[in-house]
């Protein structure tokens, strides 16, 4: 028997287990999935938790409910990958040999990368919402916060779901309106980018929305430290921004196990061929989701599209064929804009998000890059789709792994 091992049973690892358990010849292959956790979190839900829109039980399920019964689920912490000898070293001392390896260990926040970030004010007036604990602590804080300067901040790129901090700003605006205290809150959006987003058309659309919602923006801000005593953030150029409540997205990094294995770049992301998803250093290692260094968004939708491509390429690899399936960087993200509206963006490595209709040219029903209630329902439906369609590896009707240009208004 040959052994395929998947590291990580989050979004990407779970999808791969579901794809491969019926695509591989099970008389020849066993499949193992390793994860240290027993709970699967719907991370997009962390955005809604602070505003009391979702409850914890809406976003947590058991990992094992999503892993097929003919796949071995191993609940252990991975210490390192020993790629030269094709085995996994578990933290407890066990070893697991593999013939084929898929790394899907994701990315996590690293507040310790910034001076003072997890200092005295951490979870008192400095919060993150990229972890369950952070989002929950922030919810409790917001419930009785009296107002002041709310600063929403991105430390450095890349981060998971790069639009989430903007959505947080929009939702905060609408949350304080509903609490009838918007006039007591100044909202500032602080980013290391030169504008609200990275690509021209979406940046223009999003900056317009920020202005409309009276959210000020500070761009090109490269943080050097959080000053806990004076409650300010300071950038290398000397800019100082005071806060009463700081909601920051700390540096995101791949898991430390990647560093221990000597397989990562300076942020512990694994150098990966952006089209085939094969690791650049080891032919029998493939990488998917947030763990890669490919220049695509770190998003569940991206992992979903990658999973289709990777499944094909794993089958090619086993048959010693060339890896002919190529990923184009396709991402598809809803952006919550508050007051039960959202906008939708669809893009890839080469095409920036533009306006138009989706998924059917001229028909929609979803509108690209424009606020609508329909898009908001799309975002909320995404949670159901995530648990019931995405994780199971079922294709989303009418949305293909590689991006379609139909119905879009490029210049």
């Amino acid at each position: 028997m040959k052994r395929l091992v998947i590291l990580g049973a989050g979004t990407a690892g779970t999808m791969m287990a579901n794809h491969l358990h019926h695509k591989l010849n099970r008389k020849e292959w066993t499949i193992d999935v390793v994860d240290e956790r027993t709970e699967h979190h719907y991370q997009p839900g962390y955005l809604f938790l602070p505003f009391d829109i979702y409850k914890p039980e809406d976003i947590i399920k058991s990992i094992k409910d999503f892993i097929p019964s003919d796949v071995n689920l191993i609940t252990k912490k991975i210490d390192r990958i020993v790629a030269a000898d094709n085995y996994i070293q578990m933290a407890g001392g066990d070893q697991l040999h593999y013939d084929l390896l898929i790394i899907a260990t994701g990315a996590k926040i690293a507040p310790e990368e910034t001076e003072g970030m997890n200092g005295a004010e951490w979870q008192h007036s400095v919060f993150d919402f990229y972890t369950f604990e952070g989002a929950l602590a922030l919810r409790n804080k917001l419930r009785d916060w009296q107002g002041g300067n709310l600063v929403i901040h991105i430390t450095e790129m890349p981060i998971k779901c790069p639009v989430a901090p903007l959505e947080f700003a929009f939702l905060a605006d609408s949350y304080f309106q509903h609490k009838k205290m918007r006039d007591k809150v100044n909202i500032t959006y602080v980013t290391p980018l030169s504008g609200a987003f990275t690509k021209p058309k979406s940046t223009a659309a999003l900056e317009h929305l920020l202005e409309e919602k009276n959210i000020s923006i500070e761009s090109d801000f490269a943080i050097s430290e959080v000053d806990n005593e004076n409650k300010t953030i300071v950038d290398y150029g000397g800019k100082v921004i005071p806060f009463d409540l700081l909601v920051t997205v700390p540096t995101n990094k791949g898991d430390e196990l990647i560093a221990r294995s000597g397989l990562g770049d300076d942020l512990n992301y694994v150098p990966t061929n952006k089209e085939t998803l094969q690791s650049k250093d080891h032919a029998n290692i493939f990488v998917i989701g947030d763990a890669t260094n490919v220049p695509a968004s770190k998003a569940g939708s991206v992992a979903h599209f990658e999973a289709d491509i990777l499944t094909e390429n794993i089958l090619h690899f086993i048959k010693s064929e060339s890896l002919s399936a190529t990923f184009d960087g396709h991402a598809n993200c809803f952006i919550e804009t508050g007051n039960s509206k959202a906008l939708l963006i669809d893009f890839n490595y080469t095409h920036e998000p533009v306006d138009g209709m989706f998924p059917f040219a001229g028909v929609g029903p979803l509108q690209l890059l424009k606020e609508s209630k329909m898009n908001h329902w799309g975002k909320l439906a995404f949670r159901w789709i995530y648990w019931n369609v995405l994780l199971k590896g079922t294709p989303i009707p009418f949305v293909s792994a590689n991006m379609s240009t139909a119905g879009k208004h490029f210049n």
Partner: protein
Amino acid sequence: MEKIIAQKTVQVNEEGYLTNFAEWNKEIGEEIAKENNIVLSPKHWEVINYVQNEFKNEVPLTIRKIGKSGVVDIKEFYALFPVGPLKTATKIAGIPKPAGCI
């Protein structure tokens, strides 16, 4: 669009970044630096060479990368290129403005 920099006609984008690195030379670098009120010292040139090499190797540039490059730390980088250091350094170097991945 076309622009004449240091007596040479080059292709630039709306923001003034060269769109074809092959057209770049040191005089062009010096001219763009001057437009940004920077007089290039040997240390500036070390940074410029470094970012050009990273560009040729297709490594995406970030402030963090520069800070860990061994060429300068982030404080020194800001001292050399005070306003938006990465944007300015790449412009002088004749390479695209780093996008900051999406």
